[in-house]
């Protein structure tokens, strides 16, 4: 792979520097901290292994209701970026300024909205600012050109399986709602960029649900795509024009046998899943052609402090689940026969730290509740306060 340290130096010198910085010699010299821990002191955009990005521009997507504005951020990643396949997402870490952010890094997933990228290439994220959403509000309302973000490599399997240019690519269907449009948009943009013209009779259908025309993301570009002679049908639905199986059947008669990508709010996902469940089959089987991505983990709210605890604890690695009892997660795991690592069992040694991927927990020492995703918790002093998922 030919990634350089960025910005790439001319004449191949950067190539050499990059190779050197990623060499075993550099790693040995920088031990135990690693090369990036030194490079970042000089320039945050220098990296040998990690990925970071600078915001190049912020473009407001929707003009309508200001309660949940959407913006597209164009990002210049470090040369360590390996590129992405259409439909993948990236984990974005931001240090929020001010008393709210308090110097902590918050990490959230965002699907990439631009066409598939090559190593080191710019890409875009399209983000809806949730009213009380810390990260989304910051990125949409306050991020400026120059703002630095920490990134993961692109990840996820919610992608186009084949290159759009291959003749075998079959008919495609995208069903999206709200900001769930982003991965689908990346796929359609990739198809069109790479020469897909729909003239081989394999059409692309794009069915999207938005709150109102003012809230429609990419409205202009979607209108252009719809108007062009490219084999892509765009169907936009607003407000009370809910998803119906009847309508889908009209648009794509054999939809259950069509490769479908679905991404949107829980309500939409439920309706679509019903439509893709074959009533003839014994267990009510979901068509394997339907692929889904969720932006929001489906977990219940925690009981009010002091109230009855209701919820299910899932230990995701072992697959074990149990009803939340208010006992520490460590005790609950042990009751299930799991053997998580621990030391003091009183919250001081951090031996038992685990990642809570979703859900609400309560610190038994402080009573503090938290629903942040991908949060590190000490399971010896943390109890489930509702449904939660623990990486154990």
């Amino acid at each position, binding site marked *: 792979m030919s990634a350089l340290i960025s910005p790439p130096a001319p004449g191949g010198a950067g190539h050499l520097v990059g190779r050197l910085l990623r060499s075993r010699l550099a790693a040995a010299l920088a031990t*135990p901290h690693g090369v990036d821990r*030194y490079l970042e002191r000089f320039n945050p955009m220098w990296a040998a292994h990690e990925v970071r990005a600078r915001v190049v521009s912020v473009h407001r997507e929707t003009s309508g209701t200001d309660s949940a504005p959407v913006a597209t951020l164009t990002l210049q990643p470090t040369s360590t970026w390996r590129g992405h396949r259409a439909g993948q997402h990236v984990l974005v870490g931001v240090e929020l300024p001010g008393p709210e952010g308090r110097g*902590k890094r918050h990490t959230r997933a965002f699907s990439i909205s631009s066409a598939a990228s090559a190593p080191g290439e710019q890409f875009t994220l399209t983000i809806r600012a949730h009213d009380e959403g810390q990260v989304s509000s910051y990125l949409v309302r306050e991020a400026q050109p120059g703002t630095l973000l920490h990134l993961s490599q692109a990840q996820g399997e919610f992608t186009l399986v084949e290159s759009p240019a291959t003749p075998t690519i079959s008919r495609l269907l995208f069903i999206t709602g709200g900001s769930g449009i982003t991965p689908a948009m990346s796929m359609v943009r990739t198809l069109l960029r790479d020469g897909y013209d729909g003239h081989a009779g394999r059409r692309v259908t794009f069915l999207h649900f938005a709150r109102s025309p003012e809230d429609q993301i990419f409205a202009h570009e979607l209108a252009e795509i719809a108007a062009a002679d490219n084999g892509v049908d765009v169907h936009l639905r607003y407000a009370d024009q809910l998803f119906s199986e009847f309508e889908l059947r009209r648009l794509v008669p054999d939809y259950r046998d069509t490769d479908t990508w679905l991404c949107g709010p829980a309500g939409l996902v439920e309706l679509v899943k019903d439509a893709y469940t074959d009533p003839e089959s014994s267990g009510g089987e979901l068509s394997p052609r339907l692929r889904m991505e969720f932006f929001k983990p489906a977990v219940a709210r925690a009981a009010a402090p002091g109230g009855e605890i209701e919820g299910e604890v899932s230990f995701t690695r072992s697959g074990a689940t149990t009803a939340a009892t208010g006992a520490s997660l460590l005790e609950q795991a042990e009751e299930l026969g799991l053997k998580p690592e621990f030391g003091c069992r*009183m919250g001081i040694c951090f*031996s038992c*730290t685990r990642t809570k991927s979703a859900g609400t927990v309560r610190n038994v*020492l402080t009573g503090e509740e938290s629903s942040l995703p991908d949060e590190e918790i000490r399971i010896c002093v943390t109890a489930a306060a509702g449904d939660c998922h623990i990486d154990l």
Partner: protein
Amino acid sequence: MSTDTLSTPVADEKYHGLTADQIEQLGAELDALRQRVLADLGEADAAYLRKVVTTQRKMEIAGRALFYLPVIGWLPAVACLSVSKILDNMEIGHNVMHGQYDFLGDPAFNSRMFDWDTVCPGEQWKYSHNYIHHTFTNIVGKDRDVGYGILRMDPEQKWHPYYLGNPLYAFLLMTFFEWGVALHDLEVENIVSGKRKMADNKPLYPGLMRKIRRQALKDYVLFPALTGPLFPLTFAGNAVANLVRNVWAFNIIFCGHFPAGVASFSEEETANETRGHWYLRQMLGSANIKGSKLMHLMSGNLSHQIEHHLFPDLPARRYPEMAVEVQEICERYGLPYNTGRLHQQLWSVFKKICRYSLPGGDAKVAPVRGPEAVTEDSLAA
């Protein structure tokens, strides 16, 4: 939790005449202090850590670079590298691996991922230090930091002619401190006494060897080699920097638990501890060092060992401000607050090392003011 051990006279004396209720009240006050600081953690702590790390990196790079200047560069190089290693181990490594900065969400300062510039693998140190030492602080027979399994530092440790060498062992431990810390987990003394099997150490070897190999390769092969003909000088300089760090770290750490007036505990009397008791034991089992801001920085704020033992997972830069309140609490409860200048604490430790090389030793530390000093009024103040 049981509190009946408290009603026995031994417990009364040991716990400085405080009643069970008073101890719980003490715990509640310390918990409240902890909560106040916890709620205030944020940007300033992040900025401070990043500043210290930047300083440490600059010192390290300057140190490595200065070795290219023969003669005039050598001493400054050793000085820079020593400061870098001390900062790395004390204010950064020790504190980050305590989870003090986990709240930042930055993988570079996450206790599970961090490792430091010594031959002891962070992973193993977190077990012996964060868990064993911080949970069983100064419980003779359980806290292996009492004498590091090598020295006799407490009258409750049974004397043996072996301990005649106490001062010599202490000197060797100081010189090779990073190695002492690295081998600490192997519990060699427990193998000698038959309490532990050789096989128990097997899982520890690969991690230990890997870390030792990497540290030695960097300091004793690669960086010296990169200075070409100056190899021997650079080699020696790196060795001296490691030595300076060893001596400094040893002294700071020994001043934290071994000066006169620090209490030790037996397994029986700590069997049914409450949270309040645990706090009390941490306070009585640690000692501070008075000094300048620079001294606190270079000791990783372990000059505030008392506060560190009460709140091991709070960022160490908060200890000086917390110390004011902890000291005030100690005063109200009639508890000792052991602190002194570096040379005083060192002298006190030195005397102890020599004293306990011989049989016997002082009885347990007596209460400083006794029960009558603490009245309900004084606590309400």
